[in-house]
């Protein structure tokens, strides 16, 4: 059976079609969900895509976490359902406290749109379960607020539980401990600043993103 991946559209999301396209290409079925929906239909996984949900007013993700669909997303996540936040989606998951820490302005105050080299630090997440620790992936970033910040206690807990999923080889934004992506304790909720959907076709210069997204639809 084809795995259905629900991609949530908030007002101001702009990467949802790219995620649907990438999911379809790797054998899944991408389906758009509206932020005012109150249930997730029968999807097998949820992606919060990149963009500027609700204009990023107040703070990135601050308004989006109160969108009606987020109650259903939170329930789905606590039942073990795979939930992935990409870029703005990561910011939303952090604001919703489905992931610890926060995303703040890049250290150099520049909007960064460039390829990055990522290292797989943990294979305990739904995105990295088909990869090996130490694998390097080429995946682009596209953000102004990707500087991951957390308390020392949170960082220690992330390290102890292998919740640091991806790190940058050359830290572009000042993120604590070079963090590009983290997961929750169970590994089913993942947030990452890089855009795997933009590295999922040979014409895009890399297909490494597809390796991550494949984790959403199968475990082999």
């Amino acid at each position, binding site marked *: 059976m084809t795995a259905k991946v629900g991609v949530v559209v908030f007002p101001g999301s702009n990467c949802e079609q790219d995620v649907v396209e990438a999911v379809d290409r790797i054998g899944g079925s991408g389906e758009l969900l509206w932020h005012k929906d109150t249930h997730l239909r029968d999807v097998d996984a949820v992606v919060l895509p990149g963009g500027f949900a609700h204009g990023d007013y*107040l703070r990135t993700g601050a308004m989006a976490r109160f969108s009606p669909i987020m109650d259903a997303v939170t329930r789905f996540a606590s039942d073990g359902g795979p939930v992935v936040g990409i870029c703005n989606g990561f910011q939303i998951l952090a604001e919703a406290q489905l992931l610890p820490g926060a995303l703040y302005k*890049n250290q150099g105050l520049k909007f960064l749109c460039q390829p990055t080299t990522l290292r797989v630090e943990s294979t305990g997440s739904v995105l990295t379960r088909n990869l090996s620790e130490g694998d390097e992936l080429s995946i682009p970033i596209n953000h102004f607020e990707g500087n991951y910040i957390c308390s020392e206690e949170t960082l220690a807990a992330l390290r102890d539980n292998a919740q640091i999923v991806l790190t940058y080889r050359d830290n572009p934004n*000042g993120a604590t401990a070079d963090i590009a992506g983290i997961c929750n304790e169970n590994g089913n909720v993942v947030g990452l600043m890089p855009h795997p959907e933009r590295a999922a076709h040979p014409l895009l210069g890399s297909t490494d993103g597809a390796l991550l997204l494949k984790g959403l639809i199968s475990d082999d």
Partner: protein
Amino acid sequence: MTTPMFDVPKFNVVVEVSLRDGIADPEGLTIERALPALGFDGVSGVRVGKSLRFVVEAPNEAEARQQVEAMCERFLANPVIEDTGITLSPVL
């Protein structure tokens, strides 16, 4: 429908949202570096934040403050990176 005998008191609120101590503020640092170039010497500790101004209705100042504190905690600030300062004054 009943008409209240008295108007519900109103309070002017200013919420100052600032980055928590210890969190690098690249915007503040950039401004601090720019000031000497414009001839303003001796400035240090520049931190950039934002302020929100609004009016709340509440029976008294203590309850108004409670309401605003709850707003800050749930929505107006992110406690991971931000602190808030609340100033209240009665609308005259």
